[in-house]
């Protein structure tokens, strides 16, 4: 009952829906960056939505199954192959013991989610199987998977092939991307011109974009309102007395490149944040490739809450479609 890793891909980690409850000790929530895709993959193979699967970024792994199982791949658009034969995405695939799942070059998006019936059954740490690599916690020995690893899975052949997510319920990456933002936190620290420029400018996803955070560049420098720095903050105008970072908050060290903090982000620190990407749009970020043109769109709380309800609605439709 397991998966032999022939080739791990670029940075493939075991993830579930995350590890809430320990942020006050600096242990981030972790979990799939695109939880919608992770949930969909699990539903397709008959798992609990929170079962652990694989998150592969930019490149797929090569995996051999040691028992009969059902697998599904969602998220990024990446050609899927079973023993060399192309398979559909967002669909369940029946796999026989000894067969090998592999991938061709990525076509769109950034992260593919691979669920296997029974889930990946590495031990839970603090209630989750998610990998938090910086803290060497969870997942497979606290790290990304490597060639030669044998990942344990549940003993469940699953529902077999033929289940599929209707096309209108698949969520792909936007290009250009639009990320809705609720201004707040230290929004008052930048000038009115900087506030306007932040939303007017076109940004691009920078190469430094990972599970900790997505950096953006290309917009104008954000100028700060002048003040004498408060005691303990540090001398740069972008410094604050070290505080907590909200999940999805946007920090701008030195006023130059905004960084949206994501699921493995540090829990706090000394940089100001100008606001937060709304919860409904966080899943979209993990599918953005470097250089994707991106706009931040200013919204209010009512819009953020409506977007959240819409996202729940989409998940309900997905559950109904795969029931």
């Amino acid at each position, binding site marked *: 009952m397991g998966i032999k890793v022939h080739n791990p891909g670029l940075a493939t980690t075991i993830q579930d829906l995350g590890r809430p409850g320990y942020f006050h000790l600096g242990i981030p929530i972790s979990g799939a960056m695109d939880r919608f895709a992770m949930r969909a993959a699990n539903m397709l193979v008959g798992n609990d939505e929170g079962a652990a699967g694989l998150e592969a970024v930019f490149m797929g792994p090569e995996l051999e199954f040691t028992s009969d199982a059902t697998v599904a791949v969602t998220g990024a658009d990446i050609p899927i192959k079973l023993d060399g034969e192309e398979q559909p995405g967002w669909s369940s695939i029946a796999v026989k013991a000894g067969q090998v799942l592999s991938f061709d070059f990525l076509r769109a998006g950034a992260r593919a989610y691979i669920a296997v019936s029974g889930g990946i059954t590495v031990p839970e740490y603090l209630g989750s199987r998610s990998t938090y690599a910086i*803290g060497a916690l969870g997942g497979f020995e606290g790290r990304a998977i490597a060639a030669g690893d044998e990942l344990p899975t549940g003993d469940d052949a699953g529902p077999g092939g033929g289940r599929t997510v209707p096309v209108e319920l698949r969520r792909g990456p936007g290009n250009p991307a639009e990320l809705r933002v609720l201004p707040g936190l230290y929004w008052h620290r930048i000038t009115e011109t900087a506030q306007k420029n932040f939303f007017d400018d076109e940004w691009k996803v920078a190469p430094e974009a990972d599970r900790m955070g997505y950096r953006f560049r290309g917009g104008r420098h954000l100028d700060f309102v002048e003040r004498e720095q408060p005691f303990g903050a540090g001398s740069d105008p972008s410094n604050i007395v070290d505080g907590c970072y909200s999940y999805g908050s946007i920090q701008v060290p030195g006023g130059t490149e905004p960084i949206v903090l994501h699921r493995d982000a540090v829990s706090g620190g000394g940089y100001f944040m100008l606001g937060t990407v709304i919860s409904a749009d966080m899943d979209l970020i993990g599918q953005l490739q470097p250089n994707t043109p991106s706009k931040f769109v200013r919204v209010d709380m009512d819009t953020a809450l409506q977007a959240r309800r819409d996202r729940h609605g989409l998940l309900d439709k997905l559950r109904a479609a795969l029931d």
Partner: protein
Amino acid sequence: MKTRYSFGGDEHIFVEVDEEMSLDAFFKSLSMTNAVRESQIRGVTEVCPANASFQVKFDPDVIHPDDMLKEIQSLEAAAEKADSVIKTRIVEIPVYYQDPWTHETLMRFRERHQDPNSTDIEYAASINGYGSVDDFIKAHSGSPWFVSMVGFVAGLPFLYQMVDRPRQIEVPKYLRPRTDTPKLTVGYGGCFSCIYSVRGAGGYQMFGVTPMPIYDPQQEISYLREFMCFFNPGDIVKWKPINRDEYDAAVEDVDAGRFMPRMADVTFDLEKFNADNDGYNAKLEEALNGH
């Protein structure tokens, strides 16, 4: 102190108790976070205290953000009047200042530093008006420190020096953060000392390294068996300078499972501390030294 409330998107409320750091701000933040936990407001998922601020994460499907804001604001008045007395512990942490590993790292990142021609500790000593690095080490290790936040990465403590403000050390963070910091580096940024619990990125100045692990996800180290992170907000730390031989011996003890930090249970009373910093610190140290 002026409390400022803000939303962090639709899932967080951020409360800045004060713009600047002080133990008074820390204690008000601590009282408020305790009150949030005790009042069991429905929808709260995480309560994260920080140095002079805190954050509450909540589920907006359970409670409207405006209602959550009102609930938290209603706790402020009581928190202001709360006694600033906590039962805590004082812990002695050995530090090998000017060690070869942080030295190697700081040399690699010299172009990101304010003063590329000196080391981090030489720079910190000089801008804080100390005549020599030895004098600076004496100041850094001469008084206890208060853990005013745990976070950044797993189990990393932020420490605030328990002396009056004119004597507090302040240093800037690196101009651009490093991509590497040795595990267990004793760092400094703004008015805070820290211990990097794991290897990774960092922007604090690097002064030395401790042999004492403070985070163990495997929970094999004797004093980390109950929980993988050693520190909690409110802990008090006293640095003990050690040399290379003492450092090597301590690492050997850690590896053999023999190492146990020196510590003692103490009560901390902010009012009494504020009345006489040095006298109060001397009593804390007496408790640590067992007399």
